[in-house]
């Protein structure tokens, strides 16, 4: 790779593209033009994250000092293996969701709100990318609130009035979570006098376990863990998620389900491993034991609840809670394989849940709602959409030759390494429960033909919905067969995290 002096600026452009495009959308009168700008900005941001990934692959981690202020004083942006990987997930999903949005949004949101919608979606994207790219703890909090506030507003744009109460509930729980994170960051600052993540790591390592400050550190970690668990919807703290995902517009659900919780997992990883260090977190604060039980409970209980849902979007939302359980389970196993499986599942879950929620958007575009009854006969009327649902569902179950299989495989390998057979049993049970809830929909769509057929009314979804959907489905199959790229990335990120450095 050619070494360009401008390459360091990539880190800031990652955030700037969507952040600058958002006010531009607001200034424009036409929703159509706003969509065009949003799409171009999200593609530009995808190009930047691909370039960033290539750059750090060749030259190692990249640091960018904002305004030229050197590291501990100014805000730095820092991109390492893990952040480049998560950046790619977020910007790739945004780049696919934007073209999809054109038709879906025109059906679900009033015309005069279109430009506001795209502006909010871009701000949300900028916030999520900012969380990942920044190397400053307080800056991370600001970006977190930026993305959260815009997602509350986006969820409230849903057609049904319950979207409003769902958004309010999310606002209350999200703000409590963010405030907990703010307290945690404040305590870390009071202990070290720095907010730079690398500097924090160096100074915290110097605190002896017997010192008074050690107690502050444990308190800070407790606040941070609860805050992140709220944001990533770890099992007992997941209550905001089902309503928010069910009543939000289809595009919003697709984007948030594929990215927002992953970024929260990223924050948990960054604080636990890069700042506090894996040995401290696992040996003294027993993060593994704290996370293990909620993760297992999430896999079983959320999957069981999903089986009894009649609103399919809500069913997939509960399934998301279960899948987040797989990610935190991987982290809690405290091994290289476990951590790698967790990171890999962030990527694979974005692929499969993104695709499945896009199917929901296509069905609601044609049929109007996504209750189980609405799926009757859709196997014949919307063959491409339902075929995509079947493949996405297979990936969710973890059938071989799909992306879902790969992350489950590494997760089971990690569980076997620890020698706890019961964990392996829970992982397999979770997959079996996924078979049940996906099968309910497949059975209704293919083996339950609708009596009266209005031929011209329910036909295949338009191409602008199908193409992004099938790109994701293609990725599900491709990364199930040729696993080298995501597995190498996840493995590299996991080793870097376990070394406790941001390399």
């Amino acid at each position: 790779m050619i070494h360009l002096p401008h390459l360091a600026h990539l880190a800031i452009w990652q955030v700037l593209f969507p952040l600058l495009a958002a006010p531009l959308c607001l200034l424009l009168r036409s929703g159509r033009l706003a969509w065009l700008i949003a799409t171009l900005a999200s593609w530009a941001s995808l190009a930047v994250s691909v370039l960033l990934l290539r750059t750090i692959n060749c030259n190692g981690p990249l640091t960018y000092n904002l305004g030229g202020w050197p590291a501990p004083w100014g805000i730095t942006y820092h991109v390492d293996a893990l952040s480049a990987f998560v950046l790619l997930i977020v910007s790739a999903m945004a780049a696919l969701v934007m073209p999809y949005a054109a038709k879906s949004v025109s059906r679900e949101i009033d015309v005069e709100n279109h430009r506001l919608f795209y502006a909010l979606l871009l701000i949300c994207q900028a916030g999520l990318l900012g969380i990942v790219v920044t190397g400053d703890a307080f800056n991370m909090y600001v970006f977190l609130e930026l993305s959260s506030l815009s997602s509350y507003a986006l969820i409230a744009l849903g057609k049904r009035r319950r979207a409003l109460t769902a958004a309010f509930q999310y606002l209350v729980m999200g703000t409590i979570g963010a405030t907990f994170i703010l307290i945690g960051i404040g305590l870390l600052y009071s202990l070290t006098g720095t907010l730079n993540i690398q500097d924090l790591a160096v100074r915290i390592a110097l605190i002896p376990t017997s010192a008074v400050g050690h107690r502050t550190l444990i308190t800070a970690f407790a606040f941070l863990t609860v805050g992140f668990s709220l944001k990533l919807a770890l099992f007992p703290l997941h209550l905001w998620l089902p309503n928010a995902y069910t009543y939000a517009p289809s595009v919003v659900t697709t984007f948030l389900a594929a990215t927002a919780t992953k970024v929260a997992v990223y924050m948990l990883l960054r604080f636990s491993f890069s700042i506090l260090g894996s040995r401290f977190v696992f040996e003294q604060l027993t993060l593994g034991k704290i996370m293990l039980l909620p993760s297992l409970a999430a896999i079983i209980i959320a999957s069981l609840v999903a089986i009894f849902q009649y609103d399919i979007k809500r069913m997939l939302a509960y399934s998301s809670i279960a899948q987040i359980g797989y990610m935190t389970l991987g982290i809690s196993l405290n091994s290289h394989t476990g951590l790698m499986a967790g990171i890999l599942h962030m990527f694979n879950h974005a692929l499969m849940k993104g695709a499945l929620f896009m199917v929901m958007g296509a069905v609601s575009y044609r049929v109007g709602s996504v209750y189980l009854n609405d799926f009757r006969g859709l196997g014949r009327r919307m063959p491409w959409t339902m075929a995509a649902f079947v493949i996405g569902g297979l990936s969710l179950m973890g059938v071989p030759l799909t992306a879902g299989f790969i992350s489950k495989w590494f997760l089971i390998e990690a569980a076997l390494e620890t020698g706890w057979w019961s964990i392996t049993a829970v992982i397999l049970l979770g997959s079996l429960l996924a078979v049940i809830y996906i099968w309910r929909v497949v059975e209704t769509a293919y083996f339950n033909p609708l009596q009266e057929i209005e031929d011209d009314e329910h036909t295949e979804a338009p191409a602008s919905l199908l193409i992004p959907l099938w790109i994701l489905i293609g990725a599900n199959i491709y990364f199930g067969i040729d696993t080298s790229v995501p597995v190498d990335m996840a493995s590299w990120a996991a080793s870097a995290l376990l070394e406790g450095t941001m390399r």
Partner: protein
Amino acid sequence: MDSIPMNVSGHFNYWVAIFLMMTGFYVVISRGNLIKKLIGLNLFSTSVFILYISLGKIHGATAPIASETFHLYSNPLPHVLILTAIVVGVATTAVGLALTARIYEQYGTIEEDEIRIKDESL
């Protein structure tokens, strides 16, 4: 032996912050009225501002002004951080109030249990 009362009064700001934090948290959980919930949420996040500001304050110190007469300075960084956090808090309250107004338009009430009854009756 006078170290304990000194400790308690020296930590006065922190006691206030913790008291406000718990009060706000309790209001958020226990009240069903959406506006009261928002007030609780505000109290909760404002207490964290006090926590931050107290961290930067040094007794008898001034603002960091380069001068011959002053030698003890308070740390301005937590104060600056809190300016940002206040803006975030204002934005959160604004979004929350806007949502409450929309909920009132749609449901005709802002009591959580009445909203639940209206949703279930559909």
